[in-house]
């Protein structure tokens, strides 16, 4: 069990407060956490009324002790989950009626098709994932075509996606926090037909997990909380890295943009994070590096003074040039950053722009 994590104006990585909990204790343990928060949390101040603030203030050890103390009072009480209740809850999460397919034959046929049509092959390589069930693949639908606000779909596209979900993925379409969509259970033999329809609707951009697959909040164009616009910044970056060969050469990079410190674009956990700030009435952008949403979660480190909107694509370019010049063998951007630290990036970026 982890507690005290969150983004927003005070980004914190959650702390492990219990290494292992039997599932029947889940509800009573959660109740104990909330009880401790309600007893000691800063409910008097809406900016500090957060579990993460309390865990920081008390310290993880003291918070854990307080939770254990409260838990002892409710542990094994009526809130303890029964086997029947766990089974009942599980019954809502069933696998779709997969067809038994010859996985090897399906993979061979798909490979032949990919070889014959490289554009399709590239999409399969970038936007689909191996599946635990033989003969199936999971498909990510990129909502990150350059020139469209990241994550936007039109009504017609959404109608089409609903139909495609019915035709190809047991009627289920998932939306993701990366602002894309997923058809989780597509037979490999149907990928080509699916891809043709996606392509015709502008939904087959082969960039899942690359730098143009930006997470971006609505920003100043739509949001009254924003300090700065974010969509034009995303678009400028997408335009800058449109060359697919370069895009793939850069490898997996998560770039996240928020137009204010409330962090709806999750900029703290982007490998590259961009935060819109207001400097004396003008829009500026602060850049951070090294954030990660992986199991080794990390909050990015601020590179230095902020930049004007026009400079952002150049700055990102400089950061990536630095990476390319420093990377060893197959190292990703994040791996290189973690090895060399922020200094080489800082030197390059601020020498260039000043």
């Amino acid at each position, binding site marked *: 069990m982890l507690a005290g994590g969150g983004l927003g104006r005070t980004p914190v990585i959650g702390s492990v407060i219990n290494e292992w909990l039997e599932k029947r204790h889940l*509800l009573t343990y959660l109740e104990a956490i909330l*009880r401790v928060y*309600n*007893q000691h*949390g800063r*409910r*008097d101040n*809406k900016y500090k*009324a957060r579990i993460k603030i309390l865990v920081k203030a008390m310290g993880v050890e003291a918070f854990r002790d307080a939770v254990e103390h409260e838990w002892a*009072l409710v542990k094994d*009480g*009526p*809130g303890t*989950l*029964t086997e*029947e*209740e766990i089974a*009942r809850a599980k019954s809502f999460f069933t696998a779709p009626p997969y067809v038994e397919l010859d996985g090897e034959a399906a993979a061979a046929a798909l490979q032949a098709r990919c070889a014959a049509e490289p554009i399709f092959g590239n999409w399969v390589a970038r936007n689909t994932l191996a599946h635990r069930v033989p003969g199936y693949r999971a498909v990510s639908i990129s909502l990150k075509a350059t020139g469209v606000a990241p994550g936007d779909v039109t009504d017609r596209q959404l109608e089409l996606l609903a139909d495609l979900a019915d035709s190809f993925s047991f009627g289920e379409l998932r939306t993701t926090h990366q602002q894309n969509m997923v058809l989780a259970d597509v037979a490999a033999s149907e990928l080509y037909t699916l891809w043709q329809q996606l392509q015709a609707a502008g939904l087959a951009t082969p960039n899942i997990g690359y730098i143009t697959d930006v997470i971006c909040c609505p920003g100043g164009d739509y949001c009254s909380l924003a300090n700065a616009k974010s969509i034009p910044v995303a678009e400028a970056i997408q335009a800058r890295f449109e060359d697919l060969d370069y895009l793939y050469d850069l490898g997996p990079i998560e770039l996240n943009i928020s137009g204010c410190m409330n962090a709806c674009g999750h900029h703290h956990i982007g490998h590259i994070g961009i935060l819109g700030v207001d400097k004396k009435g003008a829009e500026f952008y602060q850049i951070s590096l090294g954030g990660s949403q992986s199991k080794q979660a990390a909050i990015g480190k601020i590179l230095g003074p902020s930049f004007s909107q026009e400079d952002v694509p150049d700055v990102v370019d400089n950061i990536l040039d630095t990476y390319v010049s420093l990377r060893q063998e197959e190292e990703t951007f994040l791996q290189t950053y973690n090895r060399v630290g922020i200094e080489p990036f800082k030197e390059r970026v601020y020498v260039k722009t000043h």
Partner: protein
Amino acid sequence: MSRLIRQGQISSDTWLPPAADAPVAPESHLPTLNQWQALAEKTGSAVQIEPGDGINELLPMLAAISLVAVNFPLFTDGRGFSYARELRQRGYQGELRAVGEFLPDQLHYLRRCGFDAFQFNDESRLEEGLRQLDIFSEHYQGAIDEPQPLFRRRS
């Protein structure tokens, strides 16, 4: 005379709000936690607790106290919900009264946590509060009013 909801109906009461500045609670005023602690005789006593007071000071004397008022200075400060639940869990059986700025649509949940009396600062909310008291007939979660969660009551 102030009006309040008690045991599911509108009734009246003579307690006045605490006079926090006085070293000793004046006659008819609810004692603050500090004033209550200074009382020589706690049998049949009343006390008003504030967010942040917690209930630990009351625990040794729960059987002697006949009224605990829990103040909600703001409806956004939910600590009083926990105080009620903790007091009832530790065996408090006297009147447990929510006072202050809570909202009518919180009454149902306040009662789930063990409150049996509700005194709004704004008395015009009483009728609406009464309507809200039984707004839901069934709950998933166990609480003071029904400790068994729904999953233990399904057959």
